[in-house]
């Protein structure tokens, strides 16, 4: 690959990587939210069974 | 006019407080002079006039930051911030009064600092001084509002430079340009525009900075 092509690949690669990082962060947040929903559902269930 | 009176009263209050306490002004003065001496050692020989002018602006911006960091301190320490906001005057008058007081402090410092600079480094021509004068307005207008923002934050003095420096960049460009360019008019005009635009925004938005 010529150096021009390398830089081209690097630029597009950087875009790709940053977007994927964004996906990773959102996915992590989603996992956390899922966990919280589970806990809250548990708590709601206890509340209902306790009444 | 009632508004002008409010502004004048508020500004006078700050000036009187400083005259009595005498802590901010001497500190700013000593700071700017020490900075000049540091610059002398920081500038390699033969750096030229332009470099010295640039450093003047660095000194001015950081000295202003020093003063601005303390500008809302009387209100904060006395616990009167809320009281001030509840006062029966337009909130923007509070900003204008404070900015006017800071301007007086800054000019007072510069009355000593600029001749000192001329003594240590380069003489300053009319355009350079005009640039300093115009930039002062911008620094005080924007800086006072940002200092009020910083006062509401947990990190206070730490965050004020971060908020202020990006906004100070155009002022530095205008100031240095009017000092070293053969046609300073453009730079002075730019400084005036900056002052006008940001003064309007600060005036309009200060209310939202201090209330909820």
């Amino acid at each position, binding site marked *: 690959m010529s150096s021009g092509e390398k*830089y081209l690949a690097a630029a*597009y690669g950087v*875009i790709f990587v940053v977007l994927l990082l964004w996906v990773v962060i959102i996915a992590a947040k989603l996992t956390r939210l899922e966990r919280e929903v589970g806990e809250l559902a548990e708590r709601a269930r206890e509340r209902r069974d306790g009444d | 006019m009632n508004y002008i009176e409010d502004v004048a009263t508020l500004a006078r209050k700050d000036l009187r407080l400083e005259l009595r306490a005498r802590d901010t002004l001497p500190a700013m003065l000593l700071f700017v002079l020490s900075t000049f001496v540091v610059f002398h050692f920081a500038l390699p020989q033969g750096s030229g006039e332009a470099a010295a002018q640039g450093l003047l602006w660095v000194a001015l911006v950081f000295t202003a930051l020093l003063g601005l960091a303390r500008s809302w301190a009387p209100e904060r320490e006395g616990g009167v911030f809320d009281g001030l906001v509840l006062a029966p005057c337009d909130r923007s008058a509070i900003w204008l009064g404070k900015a006017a007081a800071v301007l007086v402090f800054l000019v007072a410092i510069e009355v000593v600092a600029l001749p000192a600079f001329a003594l240590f480094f380069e003489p300053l021509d009319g355009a350079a001084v005009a640039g300093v004068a115009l930039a002062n307005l911008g620094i005080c207008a924007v800086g006072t509002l940002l200092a009020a923002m910083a006062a509401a934050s947990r990190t206070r003095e730490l*965050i004020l430079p971060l908020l202020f420096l990006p906004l100070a960049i155009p002022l530095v460009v205008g100031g240095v340009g009017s000092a070293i360019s053969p046609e300073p008019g453009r730079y002075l005009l730019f400084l005036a525009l900056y002052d006008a635009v940001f003064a309007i925004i600060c005036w309009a*938005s200060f209310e939202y900075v201090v209330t909820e």
Partner: protein
Amino acid sequence: MSTSSRNSRVPALAALAAALVGLSLALVFFVAPEDADQGISQKIFYFHVPIALTAYACFGWGALKALLYLWRKDERYDLESYVGIHLGTVFGTLTLLTGSIWAKASWGVWWTWSSNQLVLFLVLFLFYCAYFMLRFSVEEGPRRASLSAVYALFGVVLVPVSFFAIRLASDFIHPTVFNREGPQMSGTMFATFCVAWGAITVLAYVLYRVELAGKLLDQHLRELREALA
């Protein structure tokens, strides 16, 4: 309108974004002609410029939502403003990164002060980083929202002011001037650019909606938690 119906279009938009990005990549690499002067590295421009434009648009969007917040005091505008500015900062960072790579490819240096756009984005990057520092140092609530909104408005004014400042500064700052031919774009190149710009815009909007949905969900869960505690 409930949140779920509001978000029902997002998957479709995401699919559209994917298609447009795919199309623009195909156009960039297989259809657009190679630039005579700069060679193949010029093709960075097809994504670099739309990313920069989208960053400006995000900052503008954030400022608009900030203004709406100050006017209406609806918490939702504060959240939308924050997400807009966050996305703008991400795209701004991408602009700096791709711009730097392009500078290296064109001129052999990773950074130069003579590219007005790069310098402008650096200033904006610093400004909006301070936005996040401000936001994280104030307790959540109407105070934080007001401060963030005012600062966001300052940001949008800073864009043109800095632009002129940097232009003025270029007269006395840089000795070396790199010149890049403004795109003397042929029809194909221009079409490719437009498709890429459309792709990045739709992509940015999708990212914005996804991030906003996540934040709103977070908020609702917190309210639920308090209700159930």
